[in-house]
């Protein structure tokens, strides 16, 4: 018996810290991606970014069409995000009124990995880290280290049986956390049916597809493709804006194009702890604003690679 334990211990030692084989890495990522969508759960998690902290509740349940989830902010302004296969809406309480906005996409903890995470293995090396305990449950850290400078690293702690990520960290090249989300309490198993959505007023369509492109992105970082190109209205903003999104499946970078009515200064922006980067410049007759939760080289590469379409 002792020999068996020793062998198990040695096997664990060998795994910890060393890169997983492609097959093992794929299995871990797929298990986490599936668990976050197809498992019933409800819980409360804390999200920390820089100096700010938010507490949110999340519930998820599988449906015949896929899954639906409800995300509710427990502090700050009243706001919730309802997600289903058909789309997502943000519901906000504004005084006595309820405002509803359609979202182009829904992506929130713990549903962070794409449904098909396998292409990520081209851009990330996956390692198994230590075991941990989060919200009273045992989990195993799965470290996704980027192979280049165009994306942040991720550390997800997968619940030992289901694989549900109980904690997620976005880390920079020095392994310093930029953003962390972790369940404080979670119940796995049957989640209650989501309550009926409040009566929603008629909503304009969130966006329409771009038909004629007047700008071309010539320099996308490895693995990034354009996943959206729409014309949309933004809340608190006059007129329409063209919104493109580039992604490798985990990192998302937005490009906003508006007519340049006057010469545009080239501006670089970064969030206090460096997680969000931004670059604005003039491209032909357009003001282009590129921003995303990505390292500066990725934002800069996309922004400098923009050219007017000839």
């Amino acid at each position: 018996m002792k020999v068996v334990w020793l062998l198990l211990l040695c096997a664990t030692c060998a795994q910890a810290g060393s890169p997983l084989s492609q097959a093992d890495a794929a299995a871990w990522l797929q298990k986490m991606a599936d668990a976050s969508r197809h498992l019933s759960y409800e819980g409360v998690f804390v999200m920390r970014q820089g100096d700010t902290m938010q507490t949110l509740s999340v519930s998820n349940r599988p449906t015949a069409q896929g899954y639906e989830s409800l995300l509710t902010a427990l502090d700050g302004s009243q706001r919730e995000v309802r997600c289903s296969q058909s789309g997502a809406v943000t519901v906000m309480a504004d005084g006595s009124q309820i405002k509803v906005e359609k979202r182009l996409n829904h992506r929130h903890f713990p549903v962070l990995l794409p449904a098909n995470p396998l292409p990520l293995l081209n851009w990330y090396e996956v390692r198994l880290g230590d075991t941990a305990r989060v919200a009273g449950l045992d989990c195993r850290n799965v470290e996704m280290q980027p192979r280049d400078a165009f994306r942040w690293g991720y550390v997800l702690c997968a619940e030992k049986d289901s694989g549900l990520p109980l904690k997620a960290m976005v880390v920079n090249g020095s392994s310093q956390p930029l953003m962390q989300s972790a369940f404080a309490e979670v119940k796995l198993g049957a989640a209650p049916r989501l309550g009926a959505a409040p009566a929603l007023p008629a909503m304009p369509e969130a966006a329409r597809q771009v038909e004629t492109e007047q700008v071309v992105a010539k320099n996308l970082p490895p693995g990034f493709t354009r996943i959206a190109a729409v014309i949309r209205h933004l809340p608190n903003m006059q007129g329409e804006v063209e919104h493109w999104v580039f992604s490798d499946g985990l990192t998302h970078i937005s490009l906003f194009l508006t007519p340049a009515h006057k010469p545009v200064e080239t501006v670089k922006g970064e969030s206090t702890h460096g997680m969000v980067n931004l670059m604005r410049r003039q491209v032909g007759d357009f003001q282009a604003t590129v921003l995303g939760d990505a390292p500066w080289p990725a934002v800069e590469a996309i922004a400098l690679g923009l050219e007017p379409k000839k």
Partner: protein
Amino acid sequence: MNPAHEHDESLSAFLDGELSDQQARSMIRRLGEDAVLRARYAEYCATGDILRGHRHDIPDLTDKIMAALDQEPTLLAPVKKPPNRRPMLWLAAAATAAIAWGLWSTAPRQETAVPLAAATPPSDVVPYLAAHQDYAQSVVTQPEMNYSLVSLSGAAR
């Protein structure tokens, strides 16, 4: 002062060369006549040799020194104590301070840092940041942004 102490002081002064020539001659004469004083003189010489590291072969010297110390009067004058150094307590205090600093500096703070902006924050960026959150993880939080002007070169200018 008893006679023995008086002899001891004279012997000590003799050995230290502090007696006058006349007193020294008198001491030499007494040493020739007094066997007890000679024995005392031998002990003084041996003690001096040991203190200077010249000999180690006097087996009963320790007993004699301890006996002599027992006869010394007890001093009741206050003695200055060395400072009570407790390095482990200082280390613990330093560690506690370091932990407290770590907790304080990493704890979420209500106030926000003043942006060291070299450029005027673009007025229309906030809606863009909000719109990007359709694809980012954030639901409510708007990141605090710092801006700076960038000089471009080449084709991107």
